[in-house]
């Protein structure tokens, strides 16, 4: 694994940005400062960052309703993100999308998506554009274990495999689809087992270890760039909080399970690794966390001070005006 110290620190910083962003987003929801359904990525940071760290700026991803982490992993701007959470005109979607649709097309993000599995066919489409343009671009399709039940995911996998599209299907198996446990939704232990049925390699990796995810993604992306077609990576991870927001205890999860996963916190694991390798010290790691927290507060301030969208914007951007 050829990772410079700078790259490792950047990955650590991005994971920390996700954690701090979503923790605050969760609190802001509870304080009723932001509206709508906010799906938190806390606990799953290694998955998004490990995958996105292998991508170039002009690669594409499709994301899910739990998309904040993907946006930050690909380099999202927290100010525009909080502004979108606050439904402000300065937000990524000018206040029209919200948490569930927060995306930056300039970063190659083709949606956070409110419909389970819907990103998969879109990823196939973007993958086709990548293949057609032959500039070595790839598309990553993030989806969850719940979405793995949806037909759209299966249909897109078949298309991508048949056409050998440069698409990497990344199933973030956080063990819950909404409030239903993984085992009540699937008869197989590893979602990645389905890949073989469509004619692509499928692997399961430790989703709490950002380097393990990185390594798998790096190889899958390499295959895609070489024209060897799609791959499937299952990152075994865990959603610390409820389906929506933080803990509402709608359906309590076994305490033992929660504790086990929290004992394998992706940021703690990575931090320990980097300190052991002398990439970071305790002090420098703390400094990163602190600077991210400062960034979060500044971004919240920016969001709070940003103007509401004008009502006259209501009917803007339904259609593109310019035509060829």
């Amino acid at each position, binding site marked *: 694994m050829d990772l410079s110290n700078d790259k490792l620190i950047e990955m650590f910083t991005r994971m920390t940005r996700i954690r701090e962003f979503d923790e605050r987003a969760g609190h802001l929801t509870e304080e009723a400062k932001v509206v709508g359904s906010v799906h938190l990525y806390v606990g799953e940071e290694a998955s998004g960052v490990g995958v996105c760290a292998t991508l170039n700026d002009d690669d594409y991803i499709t994301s899910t309703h739990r998309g904040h982490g993907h946006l930050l992993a690909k380099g999202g701007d927290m100010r525009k993100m909080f502004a979108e959470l606050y439904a402000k005109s300065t937000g990524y979607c000018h206040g029209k999308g919200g948490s569930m649709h927060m995306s930056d097309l300039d970063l190659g993000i*083709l*949606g956070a998506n409110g419909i389970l599995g819907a990103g998969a066919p*879109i990823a*196939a489409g973007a993958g086709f554009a990548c293949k057609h343009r032959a500039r070595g671009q790839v598309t990553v399709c993030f989806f969850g274990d719940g979405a793995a039940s949806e037909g*759209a995911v299966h*249909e897109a996998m078949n298309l991508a495999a048949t056409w050998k599209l440069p698409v990497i299907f990344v199933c973030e198996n956080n063990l819950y689809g909404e409030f239903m446990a993984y085992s009540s939704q699937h008869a197989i232990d590893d979602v990645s087992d389905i890949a073989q049925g469509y004619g692509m390699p499928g692997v399961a990796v430790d989703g709490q270890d950002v380097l393990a995810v990185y390594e798998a993604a790096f190889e899958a992306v390499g295959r895609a760039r070489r024209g060897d077609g799609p791959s499937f990576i299952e990152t075994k991870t865990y959603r610390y909080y409820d389906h929506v927001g933080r803990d509402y205890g709608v359906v309590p999860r076994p305490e033992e399970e929660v504790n086990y996963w929290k004992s394998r916190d992706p940021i703690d694991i990575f931090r320990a690794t980097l300190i052991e390798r002398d990439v970071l010290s305790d002090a420098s790691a703390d400094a990163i966390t602190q600077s991210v927290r400062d960034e979060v507060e500044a971004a919240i301030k920016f969001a709070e001070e940003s103007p509401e969208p004008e009502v006259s914007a209501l009917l803007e951007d339904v259609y593109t005006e310019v035509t060829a």
Partner: protein
Amino acid sequence: MADQKRKGKKFWAAIAEAQSHAMDADPDIFVAGQDIEMGALWSTARGLRERFGPERVRNTPLSETAMAGLAVGAAVAGMRPIVEIMFIDFMACCMDQIVNQMAKMKYMFGGKAKLPLVIITHQGAGTGQAGQHSQSLEAWFAHIPGLKVVMPSDPYDAGGLMASAIWDDNPVIFITNKRLLGLRGDVPDEPYRVPLGKAAVKREGTDVSVVATGRLVQEALKAADELAGRGVSVEVVDPRTLSPLDSETIINSVRKTGRAVVAQEAVRFCGYGAELAAQIADEAFDYLDAPIKRIGAPFSPVPFAPTLEAAWIKGKGDIIAAIEEIVPVGAPA
């Protein structure tokens, strides 16, 4: 008579030519769908594979969801896809991609997404294909902000609207009626366009406006011919684009004639004709001299038996009957 019939290009050929012209001009245009490589089920892609090769003219696996998503993803990544869904009935298998993804991406994502794509699909009864291959569902798509919906009624409009649909930077649902695909008409050899959002007065008249869509335009023209012989002057207006609708042309026509018949092949209840009638009842109310008559199919799935299907499907006779109810008409010539 036979010579007359062979004059001009067929509806499907006009569509294929429009695609071919556009593909000549832009290498980012590709065509995908089931059996597209052999020219598409209804021949609307005939010759494209030979001309543009396997990379740009592609068969897909049998998955409408994957195909529609393919169009969305490729479009947002900068291409200009044209994807065919063989039957509009099959659009039921990809409504999420059409309605929640394609139609909303631009609006939800702060205006950045540009989706220059065309979904071409085919609808209509009268081919003995029963309930799951005969529906007319244009009203669904017209109800969805973010989509444009076109429904040409003759070869010239088909070619011109296809060209405009391809070059439009928004998702366009391009709907043909299967029974129109063999219709011949004058179609230029060179590239041309029929603008989206512009209705056409297909025949001028003074006594009653028939606002018809798709195949019913041809039926209305026949009805107008026949009624002309009985002294009734019928104006036939074809919206051509169902969304955005050129309400002005329609309202002006009704204000002129004072009477309106709205005609569509789809099930009448909650069909597109209801929108047309509602707009007329609001905007042209003070000019109306008679109730607005609405023609559409009865409230049942499309039956298989030819006799039943013939009874189900609306046409010239129904239009004449409706006009007779609201316009004093002389005896048949």
